[in-house]
């Protein structure tokens, strides 16, 4: 047991139990998995990605590259968690990853012996032959040999949420700079959010023995927290990782909630006017042979485990710390913990090799005089300096620059909303950080005009120690997570992959889930040394969010299953449910699909519904169409400019089918224009385009022709619309009690009547999508159920049959009516659709100019046609391509068109199809092939006109 007898921010009165690879272990509230494992004497926790080398815990933070495990709790198991980031809870089951059969006896460690053969980029030079073996053999082998944890395939029972907040000043990080900045800003009256990814505030102060303003570091932090607690304009968010900076002061973060909360995690979007990034700095490892063994740790982590967690990470330590002050602090901490100092390496020492298989047992080195030394030890505290954690700053694209003075990548001065402070700009001393936080906060408050300018000076970044350590030859790791060694970086330079972006991709340096937090600066220094360039010339690669892996569940929030996007329902929804309707999602809508009677299949239902409409009477929901109310003295002129056909003579009480083009001349949408008065029109748009047509009309009214006197109102949801269709439709209309004349003469096709149906306010449009006599009855949506009830009751006399999307489609295909997405697919001109004659030659309308482009008027374009099987009975495969030739030996043929619809027609008794065919109208009567490689079918088809049923349209008039 390595727990120190006293001290630490842990609650010794409670014991928490967990398992690691089945072995029972204990810890206390306040521990992380890392500190609890170390307290229990467990150092070997992982195997490295490529070479399967034994790995332990190198750090005490999110920068941990090697110690990744799978953690199972009551919600399931999560792979690739760093032991340093998991707060200890009761009952966690932790397992190691990437080791078979066990962590101790990993078979794949033999790969380590192949070192030189599987160096950087080896997969570009191997696994090439035989070509076919890649998927079956090589890929599978590689997946088994390298990789991290496995994803838990069971559904995640946890709840997540997505929320927003805004504030004046967001402070990220609660170390000395962050606390100081937050207190300063809050006491000046700003709304402040203080965000900390750890579950306690304090940052580096938690393991510091500095004296600050007469107090211990921990007491100073406590005081600052108390100062924040009493202010109502401050929100403190612990356990919240700010993982990305985005435009205009947006920071995204994930908050992990405490045990017992309703949600597991919350994804926060925070808008702040100023963001002070006090994320501290990450310690830089030393690069020397064998620098990756369990027991080799960053010096700051050693101090943290001793002071914050009261754990002794070893018994006998070697100290290899460049900075003299930090070295002294590390030695002091080791002594506090009763750990013997086996060696305190002087400047100029050269590290040669480490011993020990699953744990460090010794270090071989040369002293400044060149004498070889061998020091037994089980802990090595190393540090080459500090790297500012400026990632969130760099994510917005501004480059960091390498400073020879600090030997690190530094953020430049900036006037953007996010400013690095404290360690994030290489200010390391705690007192300096406090001053830096205060000065930066005052600066921000002055910029926000909430405080006068104080122009406090900002402490300078701390220069790096001039003392360095050298290294001998051997496998020295630069990137621990991806097993990238110094030799790999050298290989990349030799082979010409010298640019930093190429070195990265060729060696995979910095491409792991740790994104190179502990490896990139060393990588830049290696590249510079090996290629004879200055470190400042090398540059760096792109920083991208998330800073550290975050839960996908949190990013989704509450939007799972039916909650993913809003689901739209028509006013007839509950009424249809009672009629046994089967619904389906169609775009954003939950739409009636078909109405099966007991024991019916869908195909049988469709056949019955279609026959009922053609022979007697059916009803269908048309409420999803867009409906726009257009009023004004220029209303007709406005509409005339939007649609390409001529309807200038339209009179009140009449309606016209209308075709709208895009500015580039292609068909955008179709609908009807009903004239309710000289200055009042009701326009419909298709369901799919309702939103776009509304936006388009708004744009034309506001931007293009603001001089026109026209008012637009979206009434799409205001009117429920039920179409009654069939030879008996007029009889039902009359039975509904209209207060207007409904005879064939008084209410002809293509007209509109307003009034009442037995007290129900209604507008009735005589239009037909099915090709039968039909009336679309619109009532205000709140009366939809009443209308449906009356229609079903009074229509029973003619066996009224409700029908849905499936039958709606069957009927319109039989008539060759257009549908958006199939025939109106954004690439068709009116001429292609057989409506060239509709296009007005007299008036100006949107799209007229570009419709005249030679390509859109050319002969031989793909045109809408109908198709039937040559033998009269073979089913035509849906989505087939049309061709004059058979499929050749390779299964190919030249395509001259494709199908947009294909059904077995109930009304005609044989298969039919619609499609586009090159020069289609000149080829009526020709016989072609319809090929569907997907369905594995090729059928001989004959070209017809696109309307199969009642081509003269006589049935419309009833």
């Amino acid at each position, binding site marked *: 047991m390595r727990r120190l007898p006293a001290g630490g921010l842990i609650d010794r009165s409670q014991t928490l139990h967990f398992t690691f690879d089945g072995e029972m272990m204990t810890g206390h509230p306040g521990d992380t998995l890392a500190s609890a494992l170390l307290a229990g004497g467990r150092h070997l926790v992982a195997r490295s990605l490529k070479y399967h080398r034994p790995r332990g815990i190198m750090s005490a933070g999110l920068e941990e590259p090697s110690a990744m495990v799978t953690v199972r709790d009551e919600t399931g198991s999560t792979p690739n968690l760093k032991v340093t980031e998991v707060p200890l809870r009761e009952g966690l089951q932790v397992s190691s990853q990437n080791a078979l059969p066990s962590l101790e006896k990993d078979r794949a460690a033999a790969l380590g012996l192949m070192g030189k053969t599987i160096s950087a980029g080896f997969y570009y030079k191997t696994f090439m032959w035989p070509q076919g073996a890649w998927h079956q053999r090589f890929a599978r082998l590689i997946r088994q040999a390298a990789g991290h944890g496995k994803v838990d395939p069971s559904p995640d029972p946890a*709840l*997540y*949420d*997505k*929320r*927003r*907040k*805004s*504030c*004046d000043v967001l402070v990220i990080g609660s170390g000395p700079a962050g606390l100081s900045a937050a207190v300063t800003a809050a*006491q*000046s*009256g*700003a*709304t402040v959010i203080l965000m900390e990814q750890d579950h306690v505030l304090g940052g580096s102060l938690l393991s510091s023995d500095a004296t600050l303003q007469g107090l211990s570091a921990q007491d100073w932090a406590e005081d600052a927290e108390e100062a924040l607690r*009493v*202010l*109502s*304009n401050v*929100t403190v968010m612990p356990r919240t990782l700010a993982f990305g900076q985005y435009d205009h002061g947006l920071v995204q973060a994930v908050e992990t*909630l405490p045990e017992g*909360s*309703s*949600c597991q995690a*919350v994804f926060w979007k925070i*808008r702040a006017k100023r963001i002070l990034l006090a994320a501290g700095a990450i310690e830089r490892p030393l690069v020397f042979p064998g620098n990756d063994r369990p027991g080799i740790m960053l010096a700051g982590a050693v101090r943290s485990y001793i002071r914050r967690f009261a754990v002794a990470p070893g018994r006998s330590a070697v100290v290899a710390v460049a900075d003299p002050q930090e070295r002294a602090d590390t030695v002091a901490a080791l002594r506090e913990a009763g750990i013997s100092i086996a060696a305190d390496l002087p400047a100029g020492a050269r590290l040669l090799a480490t011993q020990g298989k699953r744990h460090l047992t010794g270090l071989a080195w040369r002293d400044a005089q060149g004498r070889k030394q061998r020091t037994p030890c089980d802990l090595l505290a190393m540090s080459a300096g500090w790297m500012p954690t400026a990632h969130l700053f760099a994510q917005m694209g501004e480059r960091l620059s390498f400073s020879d003075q600090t030997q690190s990548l530094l953020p430049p001065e900036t006037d953007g909303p996010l400013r690095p402070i404290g360690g994030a700009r290489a200010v390391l001393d705690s007192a300096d950080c406090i001053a830096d936080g205060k000065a930066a906060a005052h600066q921000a408050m002055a910029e926000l005009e909430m405080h006068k300018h104080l122009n406090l000076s900002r402490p300078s970044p701390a220069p790096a120690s001039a003392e360095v350590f050298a290294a001998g030859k051997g496998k020295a790791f630069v990137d621990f997570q991806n097993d990238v060694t110094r030799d790999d970086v050298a290989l990349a330079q030799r082979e010409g992959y010298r640019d930093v972006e190429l070195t990265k991709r060729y060696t995979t340096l910095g491409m792991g889930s740790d994104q190179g937090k502990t490896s990139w600066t060393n990588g830049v220094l290696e590249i510079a040394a090996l290629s004879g360039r200055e470190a400042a010339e090398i540059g760096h690669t792109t920083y991208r969010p998330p800073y550290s892996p975050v839960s996908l569940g949190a990013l989704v929030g*509450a939007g799972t299953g039916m*909650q993913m*996007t*809003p*689901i*739209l*329902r*028509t*006013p007839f*929804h*509950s009424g249809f449910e009672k009629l046994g309707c089967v619904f389906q999602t169609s775009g954003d809508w939950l739409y009636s699909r078909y109405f099966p009677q007991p024991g019916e299949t869908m195909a049988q239902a469709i056949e019955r519904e279609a026959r009922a409409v053609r022979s007697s009477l059916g009803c269908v929901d048309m409420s*999803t169409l867009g409906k726009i*109310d257009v*009023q004004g003295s220029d209303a007709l002129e406005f509409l005339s400019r939007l649609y390409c056909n001529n309807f200038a003579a339209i009179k009140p009480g009449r309606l016209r089918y209308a075709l709208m083009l895009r500015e580039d001349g292609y068909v955008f949408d179709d609908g009807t224009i009903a004239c309710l008065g000289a200055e009042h029109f009701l326009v419909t748009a298709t369901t799919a385009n309702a939103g776009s047509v509304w936006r388009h009309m708004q744009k034309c009214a506001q931007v293009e022709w603001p001089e026109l006197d026209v*008012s*637009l*109102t*979206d*009434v*799409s*949801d*205001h009117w*429920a619309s039920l179409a009654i269709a069939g030879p008996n439709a007029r009889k039902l209309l009359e039975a509904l*009690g209209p207060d207007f004349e409904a005879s064939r003469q008084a209410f002809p096709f293509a007209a509109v009547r307003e009034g*009442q149906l*037995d*007290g*129900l306010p209604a507008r009735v449009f005589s239009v037909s999508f099915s090709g039968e006599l039909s009336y679309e009855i619109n009532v*205000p*949506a*709140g*009366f*939809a159920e*009443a209308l449906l009830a009356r229609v079903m009751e009074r229509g029973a006399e003619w066996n009224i049959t409700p029908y849905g999307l499936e039958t709606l489609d069957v009927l319109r295909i039989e008539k060759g009516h257009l549908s958006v997405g199939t025939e109106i697919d954004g690439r068709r001109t009116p001429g292609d659709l057989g409506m060239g004659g509709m296009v007005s030659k007299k008036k100006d309308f949107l799209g007229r100019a570009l419709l005249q482009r030679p390509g859109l008027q050319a002969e031989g374009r793909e045109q809408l046609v109908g198709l039937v099987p040559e033998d009269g009975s073979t089913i035509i495969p849906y989505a087939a391509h049309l061709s004059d030739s058979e499929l050749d030996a390779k299964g190919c043929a030249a395509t001259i068109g494709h199908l947009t619809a294909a059904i077995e027609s109930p009304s005609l008794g044989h298969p039919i199809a619609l499609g586009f065919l090159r020069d289609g109208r000149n080829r009526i009567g020709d016989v072609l092939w319809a090929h569907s490689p997907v369905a594995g079918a090729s059928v001989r088809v004959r070209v017809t006109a696109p309307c199969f049923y009642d081509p003269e349209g006589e049935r419309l008039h009833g």
Partner: protein
Amino acid sequence: MADAPEITRASDAEGFLPGPLGLRLDEEFLPLTALNAKPEVLDSLLPFGRMHQDGATFLLRLWPGTIWSSGPLSAGSYRAADIGHGLTRFRLRGVEALHFLDHYTCATLFAPHIRQARCIRTRLGGHDATLWWHNTRDVHAVVYRSAAQSFADHLRALALRHDPADPSTYPRPVNPGAPDRRG
């Protein structure tokens, strides 16, 4: 000739939402007319961004060229279109009603100019929502009728995700000497 029948509801929202926040969500039909005119003309009735309630008369101006009106129509040269059936009006009531919604709306409901105006049109969980309130414990939320059930379901799912002592949903105790909350 029968009378016009009852207006059926668009959602099943009625009573308390699940979860510990004690919020009620109810649906109440609101007859509404859209009055369209040039902005200058509407300015004389109600400036942009404002709401007015005077007995049965309710006016809401969240569009440059349109006012929503409920109750008796004022005289004036506007073009009117009935829109009440196309919209569903919900009332969310509870101590933290506005704070709850503020977590999810694109716009900040507690920004100074919104707190003053007490009305806004914004986006909440994929729904366009028009909100107004006379006090923060009783918020009117209007969405498109077709999205009404979806909106109610969404608020239910969100209410479940809060905890009683969640400090971000409750106002924190104020130290007597603390500076005024800004914004």
